[in-house]
């Protein structure tokens, strides 16, 4: 059982994916609160917007790590999500602070529905990738 750099990458990815799953769940709950009129959109956007860039940076960090560890399969699985993040951030409404969500438009039903779907899809992806990294870590640890 050799402790290679790849194994270290997978371990770190495992921990950080837990954080990403937490973010995804936070998003889902936040949009549900908006939908059921539990919270004000201004306050909700002020809590959601600071979380967007950290999530995107963590995921970017994964991609860089797997690139350095030469784990091409894992990298290719993460690249579409990275491209999606880039597109999403480029097409955000005009804002002076970092973030994606504008309180004046977020209550439109189509935008709200899109964000909810996005939350669920991301949760599914991060959960699957959690188990994938777990498998990958054990594989790398065992097979070298």
């Amino acid at each position: 059982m050799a402790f290679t750099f790849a194994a270290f990458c997978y371990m770190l990815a495992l921990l950080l994916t837990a954080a990403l799953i937490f973010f995804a769940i936070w998003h889902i709950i936040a949009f549900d609160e908006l939908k059921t009129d539990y919270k004000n959109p201004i306050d909700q956007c002020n809590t959601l917007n600071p979380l967007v860039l950290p999530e995107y940076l963590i995921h970017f960090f994964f991609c860089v790590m797997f690139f350095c560890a030469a784990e091409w399969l894992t990298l290719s699985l993460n690249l579409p999500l990275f491209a999606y993040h880039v597109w999403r951030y480029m097409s955000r409404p005009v804002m002076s602070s970092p973030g994606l969500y504008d309180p004046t438009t977020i209550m439109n039903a189509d935008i709200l529905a899109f964000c909810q779907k996005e939350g669920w899809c991301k949760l599914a992806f991060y959960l699957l990738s959690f188990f994938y990294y777990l498998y990958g870590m054990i594989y790398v640890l065992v097979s070298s």
Partner: protein
Amino acid sequence: MEPWLAMAHKHQTAIIMLTTKWLACLSTVHRVGTWATTPPSPLGTRTPRLLTTPPPPMHPALQAATQPYTQAHQPYQQPPGGPGPAQLSPSLAAMSLQSNTPESLRVVNLLQERNLLPPSPTPPPTPCLPQDLQKINCNPEVFRSTLTSIPQTQSLLNKAKMPLGLMLHPFKDLSQLPVVTSSTIVRCRSCRTYINPFVSFLDQRRWKCNLCHRVNDVPEEFMYNPVSRSYGEPHKRPEVQNATIEFIAPSEYMLRPPQPAAYLFVLDVSHNAVETGYLNVFCQSMLENINALPGDSRTKVGFITFDSTIHFYNLQEGLSQPQMLIVSDIEDIFLPTPDSLLVNLNECKELVQDLLKSLPTLFQKTMETQSALGSALQAAFKLLSPTGGRMTIFQTQLPNLGVGALQSREDPNQRASAKDIQHLSPATDFYKKLALDCSGQQVSVDLFLLSSQYCDLASLGCISRYSAGTVYYYPSYHHQRNPALVECFQKDLKRYLTRKIGFEAVMRIRCTKGLSIHTFHGNFFVRSTDLLSLPNVNPDAGFAVQMSIEENLDDLQVVSFQAALLYTSSKGERRIRVHTLCLPVVNSLSDIFAGADVQAISGLLACMAVDRSATASLSDARDAMTNAAIDSLTSYRQSVLTIQQPGLLAPACLRLFPLFILALLKQKAFRTGTSTRLDDRVFAMLQLKYQPLVYSLLMIHPALYRVDDLTDEGALNINERTIPQPRVLQLSVEKLSREAAFLMDAGTVMYLWIGRNCHPNFLSQVLGVPSYAAVPDNLYLLPELDTAESQRTRAFIGWLRDQRPFFPPMHVIREESQLKSTFMQNMIEDRTESALSYYEFLLHLQQQISK
């Protein structure tokens, strides 16, 4: 009313006669062969009726029930327990469209029939409800739906390819408004709907909500009817007899004690501003109307002026004259004194009047060219946030100093671009964030923009859009060079200062279970899925919403919508204005088309296109509008039309739809290829979203009248004045003639076009000039001459102006006038170098439909 009806009938028969005779006007080759011999539409032997009447009764029992409400009838037999949708006979569904095509579904071949415009403005279509329900239904000027028959399922609505939405004008000035002071306001326990005329009473003690179908108890106090002093008849109470009603709200409806009316005026006093001379007009207007400002003894008023520094005015009672305090630290603005900047109007009236008299002279010699609008707004917000209220900003140039400074983004070479228009969305979110902060503190911001250069209205307008304010725009305002605008500004200011106002308002729109609202259009902030936060509500604001059908409305005969506006009146009373609309549910595509309201559909499409041009692009929005016409006519052709005829076929209720779509495509907001200033374009977009439907329709499709031959035939008699009613003409140069004079009513502006060979009689008797060459260039007022023609013309123009709250300036145009191009741009049916003519547009639609 009667002569007008007769005239409409006469013209209807004339239109049908002309159908087969229209040949000479067309110059393009037609590949569609047999349109010359197509038989006229199958009307049978019925007398032509107005387009808006519901279908003739089929079931003998419902014979009296479905007459249009303009005709007399015997009342529908009401079973005990009051009116209600539960009493409707199941043959309501059976009576639709069996052998007789109703007037609204009469097939019209748009390529053939030339004169589609009705001679006078059409009333909105009447929903197909039984007489007793329709009689108490909400006024369509207040609450109107794009489809007066709601489809039963979402798939049916998708097949019809028409948008489903509501156009509201909830705070409209009403002549009769029942006001109820009641200790209990009866509301449904689960959905909190207010009791309305469309609930059903199960027995004397229980009522069933028409929105969520829950059974509620009638409270004891409600059983007594104070109007008729009788007991035991809850269905006779005013809340159940009127669809529009106002309640005086008890203290549970207040989050804080009702606020006093607070008005803050923020005035630009840079060199540019003083040059335009608006300050004189403003101060004059304020002095005249100071006693007419809505409010009571607690009314507060304050003034802030700014250029590169912010100036506050200490108006404390006891001072001999107003004291000016200047704050030059615009990066970190603070209030110089804690109070006495916003003072009680009644106590300090003399000081306020002194200030208003001295303001124009104070800044006469100023040489400041910079404008620190952002800091002024922050200061004003600090001043108003303890109480809430209304902030009015007067700005004459691009803010270029301090926070919120804007850049000049417009490229003059791109004005006539045939492709996409850039910079339609805000450059910075400073104004949007400030508007949201204001909205949170119940402050509303109104913007008066009096500039001649580019002012980035796309960014500045956000301050009003999200705080439920209004934007007024006077391009190139100058007191000497543009006197027509000065008069317009004066009259608008008077209306603005004296109109009714509601403070710290919220509006909630509820609909029957199964329907849901997904998008809102208008100036407000959406606080939750159906709650709109309106710090100020004014009688000139219109709103639109789009709906979708979440669950099938299978076992429902009718659905209801309720808009409830909770506001504080200017006298400090908390009130709730409730409007309820009831519409039938249908399950066939032909019924949906029969009930389509083409004006509301066009208005809603305009709002949707404004949103689309901000999120996607302008060309996207234009394509979407054309596709809306194509899709709905395709759907009609495929699903409803039984006989396939060649040509572009449309139901009579939608015959004006392609015309309105073409008018929108040529409207200042959406047109490409013609030079349009960016601010003008953005303002047109803001107006399309903000104005109530009837005014935005005039903006989209102006009304053209011939005025040199006004007669008293068919005239209205109002207040002993005879008001002639000329016919509405099509917007084509074909209808203009050198020998006549025409009036174009475009909602916010009017044009009086004088033909070169106009009869000298008209010139002398109405304009007071001997010949055409003597007509002055910048004439904007008709002289008050004693001749019959002058009186008729002025009566007609005055009547048009009285119908709307704002004041449209009038421009008299000769053929050499500079405004001639603006006038000609409104000729929608004609071809220009960048846009199709109406007939070519119809051919384009036909080509797309038959693909």
